[in-house]
Structure formats: structure tokens, C-alpha cells
């Protein structure tokens, strides 16, 4: 089966610009998660979709971040306007169920804000 795919793999933008990250989960996985790792720190949870609904968005840093999952398939994460501290690697993951079902991760998008 195809894994979780993320696009782009790298993005370099200037402060104040807008960037949209995309994630295609494994087909049939209702659960989709976004995580972020800022340089040298832990991988932090951003939010969780079940199908098209936001189950938990407690990790979203502020209202400059907007995540969508229209139709319950792929998801986008938009940062507008980007700030320097938004730099990091953004990971997307999907899982078939919750609890003990493992998360399958994409390769991440490395975002650099200059």
C-alpha cells in the first residue's frame, strides 16, 4: 500500500508570506494527525482529524495556522502569515483506528522562514 505522502518536502519562504502544506494519508485511514518538530526539540502534536472533523486541535500554536480536511481525504495546513518561529519539520500521520493502532508517518515537510 502507498504510505503517507507529504508535499512539498522543503519550503523556504519569507516572513509574512503564506505557505500551504499538503498531506495524503493512507487510503482508508480515517484518523489524520499533524505534528511539528522545531529544531532540537520534541515532536509536538498539532491536531487530529477523524474523517473531515477536527477531533482535537489543542496543539495548534495560534490562529495563523489553519488545517482542513475537506471530504475526509487529504489534508492541508496553511500558515498565514508565517513567522520565523514557525520554522521546523511538519509531519503528517494517519492511522486506521485509535488507541493501540500505530500512526504511520510521512517524510515531513521542512519549512524554513527567513
Amino acid at each position, binding site marked *: 500500500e502507498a*504510505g*503517507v505522502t507529504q508535499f512539498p518536502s522543503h519550503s523556504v519562504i519569507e516572513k509574512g508570506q503564506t505557505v500551504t502544506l499538503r498531506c495524503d494519508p493512507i487510503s482508508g485511514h480515517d*484518523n489524520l*494527525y499533524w*505534528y511539528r518538530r522545531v529544531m532540537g*526539540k*520534541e*515532536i*509536538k*502534536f498539532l491536531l*487530529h482529524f477523524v474523517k473531515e472533523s477536527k*477531533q*482535537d486541535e489543542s*496543539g495548534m500554536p495560534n490562529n495563523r495556522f489553519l488545517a482542513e480536511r475537506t471530504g475526509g481525504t487529504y489534508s492541508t495546513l496553511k500558515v498565514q502569515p508565517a513567522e520565523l518561529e514557525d520554522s521546523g519539520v511538519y*509531519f503528517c*500521520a494517519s492511522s486506521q483506528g*485509535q*488507541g*493501540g493502532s*500505530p*500512526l*504511520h*508517518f*510521512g*517524510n*515531513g515537510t521542512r519549512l524554513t522562514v527567513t
Partner: protein
Amino acid sequence: AQSVTQLDSQVPVFEEAPVELRCNYSSSVSVYLFWYVQYPNQGLQLLLKYLSGSTLVKGINGFEAEFNKSQTSFHLRKPSVHISDTAEYFCAVRGGNTDKLIFGTGTRLQVFP
């Protein structure tokens, strides 16, 4: 709330030596425990998981981990490492009233010839 502590940020080891990467977790409820590995320029890959039952869990690439409830630990071990095991390893916990996967800060394993 759950949390995970990985005590060692870096572990250098020679090839064919044994290795243990330490992980301690904090939770007031039963949890599921995972180890993930990230090879350079790749995403996170599941190594192994503990859900219930036998406390010794075997994973891919010869790794195993032991769940110790009394010590709230889930240390990862391999009896003989290879150069190709050089990567960053993350311990993670999930459970209770949240479906979040909570990660530790990671341990960078460097295997030398």
C-alpha cells in the same frame, strides 16, 4: 497528562556492541507505548509497540523493548548494533482520555565502526 522522558540525547556505540536506549513515561492511566526510528532524511518508522500482554516486545531490525509498569519504563535494546542502526529513536505514549501520541525528545544513536 502523559509525558515521556528520554534520558539520553545522544548514545555513541561501536558496531556489534549492545545498546540500551532509555525511556520513562508518566501516566495515571493505562497507556500504549511505542518506539519509532527516524533515519536521515526520512519519516518516522514504527519499530515496535506495547499494547498489553507479554512485557517483552520484539520489533523490526532485531530491536526489543521491555515494559516495566512498576518503574514506568520502556527501554529499547539491541544485543548487537550495526552501522545502519545510526538514526534518531523516539519513545512515545498514547492513551487515557486523549488520542494524542506524546513523544520524548529523541535519542540520537551513533554507531561507529
